[in-house]
């Protein structure tokens, strides 16, 4: 049957995705109306909006990984980062604007993890857009209530001797976790080290990737 393909694969081997035919929500309609009015009144242009979306999409966890790798290899930068992370990141070209960034560092005895219980505050200048799970009610409510259980579900089971520090971004700060530098990476360049720094390791739901032998 020509239309009987809901569970089937396309000729190129991909699953068919259903069309998104639901009506717009109230807020989606409002956003379109406000956007069109701003363009009509000359406050902004469609090209400006597209360019801003491009800038937002260009930010990725690779930015944060560069910062972490430099902190691992440049002790003076590390000191500046721990003292004032906004300024240290700005000097690398990752400006956080009017917000303030705090770097928290994992050690042999301390593990940090970031959450925003009130909404979805996230260091977008360093990590790009947050993953969907970061915005979920489950992650936001459970990370402050039972962080070790949440981390275990990410595959990270911490020893009892490790102190877990949860950071709830409730106001004007944003946070980045500086994961511990993996073993057996002595002499690695910052560029090579950055390949070990995952997005989740900078949120605190993972450690940095181990160096492969």
């Amino acid at each position: 049957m020509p239309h009987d393909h809901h569970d089937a694969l396309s000729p190129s081997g991909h699953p068919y995705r259903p069309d998104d035919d639901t009506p717009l929500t109230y807020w989606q309609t409002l956003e379109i109306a406000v956007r069109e009015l701003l363009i009509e009144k000359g406050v902004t242009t469609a090209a400006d909006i597209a360019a801003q979306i491009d800038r937002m999409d260009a930010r990725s966890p690779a930015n944060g990984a560069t910062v972490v790798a430099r902190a691992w290899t440049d002790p003076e930068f590390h000191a500046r980062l721990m003292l004032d992370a906004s300024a240290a990141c700005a000097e690398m070209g990752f400006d956080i604007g009017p917000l303030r960034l705090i770097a928290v560092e994992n050690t042999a005895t301390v593990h940090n993890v970031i959450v925003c219980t009130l909404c979805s505050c996230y260091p977008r200048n360093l990590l790009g857009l947050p993953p969907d799970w970061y915005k979920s009610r489950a992650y936001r409510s459970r990370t402050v209530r039972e962080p070790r259980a949440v981390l275990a579900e990410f595959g990270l089971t911490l020893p009892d001797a490790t102190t877990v520090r949860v950071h709830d971004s409730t106001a004007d700060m944003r946070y980045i976790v500086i994961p511990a530098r993996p073993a057996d990476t002595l002499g690695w360049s910052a560029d090579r080290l950055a390949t070990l720094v995952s997005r989740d390791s900078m949120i605190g739901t993972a450690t940095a990737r181990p160096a492969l032998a």
Partner: protein
Amino acid sequence: MTQQRVRVRALMPPGHVRTPAYLRGKTGTIERPLGAFPNPEALAYGHPGEPRDLFRVRFRMGDLWADATHPDDTLDAEIYAHWLEPLKD
């Protein structure tokens, strides 16, 4: 210098506030002062938002949750000064 102990006010005002309900009435220590920021409780309603001092407050998990499996784990949150009352200890 000992850490300043504070209690989060157990207020339940209507409207937009940035103090999570689960921390209200709880006791912690000042982790660091952050400086003054426009009061979000006014900003949210289009008012200018006069600067208010903001602090990072550290709580013991055992002081937040009676059944915490690791009571010495910690939770840090940013709380505005007008939500904090100092404790003599």
